[in-house]
C-alpha cells in the first residue's frame, strides 16, 4: 500500500513541476470563472438584479382567498424577491404587462373566493408577455403553487390559466420555454418541485466538469509516458508489482479529478456566487462523476499508441462530453436526440444530481443520478483497467 502512495506522490510532484495539470485543472477554470463573473456579473447576481415585477388586479375584493394571495405576494415583496403593484381592473393590468411596466400579472376574477369555498371551479389568470417566457414561467409557477395550496386546503379544484394576448401555440411555447430555462435562484427555491440549478451554480458545475475531464486522464497518460521513458520497466523490475502500479495510476487520476472539481467549486462559491448545498451528498456526486469520467477517458486514451496521441484523445473526449453533457448550455430535459445522447455523459447526470439536490432532500433525491454515475464508473474503470494491463510491459 505504501508503494502506491509513493508512486502517487512522485507523479503529483512531476505533474506539478510539469504545470499542465495546474493549468488545466486549476488556472484555466479559474480564469474562465473570473471572465464569466466579469461578463455576466449582472446576470448572475440574482439577489440584486433580477427582481421580477408582478401586477395584481383583484376583482374579488374582500374575498378571503384572493386577499390571502395578495398578502402572500406582499410577503415575497418584503423579502425583496419580487415587486408587486396593484391595478384597478383587468384592462389596466393588461396594459401594464403590454407596456412592460410589470413583467407579468395575476388577475383574480370576481367571486373567486366564494367559488373556491363552494367547491366549484375558478381560475387565477396569469397575464404574461410572450416576449418574456422566463417571467411567464415564474408567474405560472407561483400561481400553480398558490392553486396547489388552495387545493390542499379546500380540496376544491382551483386551476390556473395563462392568458394575455397569447395564442394557444404561444401558450405551449411559453410553457415549454419556462420549463427548460432555470429560473433564478431565489424564486426557484420557492418551488421545491421544480428542481433546477440557478445560473451561477449551473455554469460553475459545468465548467468544473468540463475542465476536470482534461486532467482526469493523468493516470493512464503517465503510465504511457513512463513506458515511453522506460521508467515503467524499471518499476516492473521492483518488488512493487504490476497491480499496485495500476492502482497508483488510477488513484492519481481520481485524486487529480476530485481536486480539480473541488477547488473550482470552492472558488466559484466566492467568485461566481455558486450555491453548493448538502456537501456530503455533493461530494459523493463529485466522486462518482470523477470516477466515471476517469473511466471513460482512460478507456479511450488506453487505445492510443503514444502518450501524445492519448493526450489528444483526452482533449477530444473532454470537448465532446462537455458539449453533449450540457456544460455550455442546458440540453437535458427535452427528448431530442441530443438530450438522449447527453445521458451518456457523466456531466448530464452530475448536473441533474446537483439540480435534484438543490431543493433539499439529501441522498434519497439523488439516488438515480448517483447510481448511474457509479455504474458508469464501475463499468468503464473495469474495462480500462483490463485494457491498461497490456501497457504493463517494457
Amino acid at each position, binding site marked *: 500500500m*505504501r*508503494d502506491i502512495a*509513493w*508512486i502517487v506522490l*512522485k507523479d503529483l*510532484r*512531476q505533474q506539478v*513541476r*510539469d504545470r499542465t495539470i495546474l493549468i488545466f485543472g486549476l488556472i484555466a477554470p479559474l480564469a474562465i470563472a473570473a471572465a464569466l463573473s466579469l461578463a455576466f456579473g449582472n446576470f448572475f447576481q440574482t439577489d440584486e438584479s433580477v427582481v421580477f415585477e408582478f401586477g395584481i388586479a383583484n376583482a374579488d375584493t374582500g374575498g378571503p382567498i384572493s386577499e390571502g394571495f395578495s398578502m402572500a405576494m406582499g410577503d415575497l415583496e418584503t423579502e425583496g424577491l419580487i415587486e408587486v403593484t396593484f391595478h384597478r381592473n383587468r384592462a389596466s393590468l393588461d396594459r401594464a404587462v403590454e407596456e412592460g411596466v410589470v413583467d407579468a400579472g395575476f388577475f383574480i376574477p370576481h367571486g373567486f373566493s366564494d367559488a373556491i369555498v363552494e367547491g366549484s371551479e375558478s381560475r387565477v389568470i396569469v397575464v404574461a408577455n410572450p416576449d418574456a417566457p422566463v417571467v411567464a414561467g415564474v408567474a405560472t409557477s407561483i400561481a400553480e403553487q398558490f392553486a396547489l395550496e388552495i387545493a390542499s386546503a379546500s380540496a376544491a379544484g382551483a386551476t390556473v390559466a395563462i392568458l394575455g394576448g397569447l395564442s394557444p401555440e404561444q401558450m405551449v411555447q411559453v410553457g415549454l420555454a419556462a420549463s427548460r430555462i432555470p429560473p433564478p435562484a431565489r424564486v426557484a427555491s420557492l418551488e421545491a418541485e421544480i428542481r433546477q440549478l440557478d445560473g451561477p451554480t449551473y455554469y460553475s458545475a459545468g465548467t468544473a466538469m468540463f475542465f476536470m475531464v482534461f486532467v482526469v486522464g493523468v493516470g493512464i497518460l503517465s503510465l504511457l509516458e513512463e513506458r515511453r*521513458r*522506460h*521508467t515503467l*520497466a*524499471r*518499476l*516492473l*523490475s*521492483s*518488488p*512493487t*508489482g*504490476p497491480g499496485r502500479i495500476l492502482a497508483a495510476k488510477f488513484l492519481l487520476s481520481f485524486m487529480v479529478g476530485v481536486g480539480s472539481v473541488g477547488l473550482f467549486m470552492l472558488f466559484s462559491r466566492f467568485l461566481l456566487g455558486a450555491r453548493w448545498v448538502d456537501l456530503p451528498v455533493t461530494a459523493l456526486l463529485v466522486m462518482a462523476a470523477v470516477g466515471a469520467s476517469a473511466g471513460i477517458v482512460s478507456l479511450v486514451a488506453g487505445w492510443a499508441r503514444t502518450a501524445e496521441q492519448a493526450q489528444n484523445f483526452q482533449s477530444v473526449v473532454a470537448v465532446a462530453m462537455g458539449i453533449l453533457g450540457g456544460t455550455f448550455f442546458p440540453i437535458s430535459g427535452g427528448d431530442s436526440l441530443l438530450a438522449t445522447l447527453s445521458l451518456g455523459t457523466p456531466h448530464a447526470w452530475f448536473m441533474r444530481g446537483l439540480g435534484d439536490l438543490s431543493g433539499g432532500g439529501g441522498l434519497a433525491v439523488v439516488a438515480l443520478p448517483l447510481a448511474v454515475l457509479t455504474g458508469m464508473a464501475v463499468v468503464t474503470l473495469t474495462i480500462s483497467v483490463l485494457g491498461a494491463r497490456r501497457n504493463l*510491459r*517494457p
Partner: protein
Amino acid sequence: MNTPLNAPAPDPSPLVLQVEDLRKSYGEIQAVKGITFEIAPGENYGLLGPNGAGKTTTIQMIAGVLEADGGRVTVCGGELTTTTTSLKSHIGWVPQEVALYDRLTARENLAFFGRMQGLSGKRLARRVDEVLQLTGLSDRAGDKTIKFSGGMRRRLNIGIGLLHEPDLLILDEPTVGVDVQSRASILDQVAEMTRQGMAVLYTTHYIEEVERLCNRVGIIDHGELIAEGTRTELVRMVGERDRVLITAEGDLTGGAGRIEQLDGVHQAGVTNEGLELLVDDATPLLPRIFEALAGSGISVSGVRVEEPDLEAVFLHLTGRALRD
C-alpha cells in the same frame, strides 16, 4: 553476501541465477530461442552478442519485466515470473535505455526507486548518499536529471540498480554512448561490485569489456547461446593459434616457403603488406622466423602478433564479425 529485502530465506542452492530453455517471440520474430545458463555467487558472467542477438529480451525476462513464452528463471532458489514480486529484490537491473524521471532530481530519483525496492528510513538515506558518492554525482544531487549530461544520466541509471545491494546485478550495455572517462569509471565500478561478491550479468557487444570484466562468457547470436565458457576455454575452440603479421619487402614468396618449414608454423601467406603467419605460440618462434626472413633477403619494417580473442571465436562460430 548481501541480505535481500522482503524476500523469503533463500534456498541453500549455490546458484544466484539459473536460466532454463528461455523463449520469447515477437510475432514472427523468434527473439530468444531456448537459452540456458547459470550464474554462481560472485561470478561475473558476460553475455556477448551483436545487435539484435536477443540480449535485452533475455535480460528483461530474467529481471521479471517481460513475460517469457517458455522456460524458467530461478533466482536464489525461487522461480521468478513477472508477478513473483518478492524475488525481484534479489536483482538489480540496469536497463539498456536510461530510465530516469527528468523532472525529479538525482536524489529524488534514487529515493523513489529505493522506496520501490523496499528501502526506507536511515537505510534509504544512507544508500542514496553512498550511491551518489559511488557515481560521482554527490555535488549534483539536487539538480533535475534533465540537466544532466549523457554520461551522468548513465551513471545514475546504473546507480539505481545498485541501491538495494542486490545479489545479482544485471547490466544491459551500460557503456553505450558514454565517453571514454565515464566508461572507464563504470567498468571500475562493476569490477568493484564483483570484488565485493556481487554476481553480475553483463551484456555488451564490446569484446574488451567482457575480456576485462567477466570470468565466464556466453556468446549469443540469433537468440541462441552458441558457446559458453571462460575466455581460455572459448579461445581454445578456435585452436590456440597466434596470428603474426609481418610488414616486409623482398622475396616474400620464398620467405613464406622457408618459414612454413619451421616447427610450430601452420600457415604462411603473402599479403599486400608482407606476410601473415598462423603459429602455435609466437613468442619462442619469433627469433627463428626473423632468421628465415634474413636468409631470404627480406627487410622487415614491422611485426605484430595477435593472440586469438573472442572476436576470432565469434568469427569462427558464425562466419561473421561481431561488430557490423
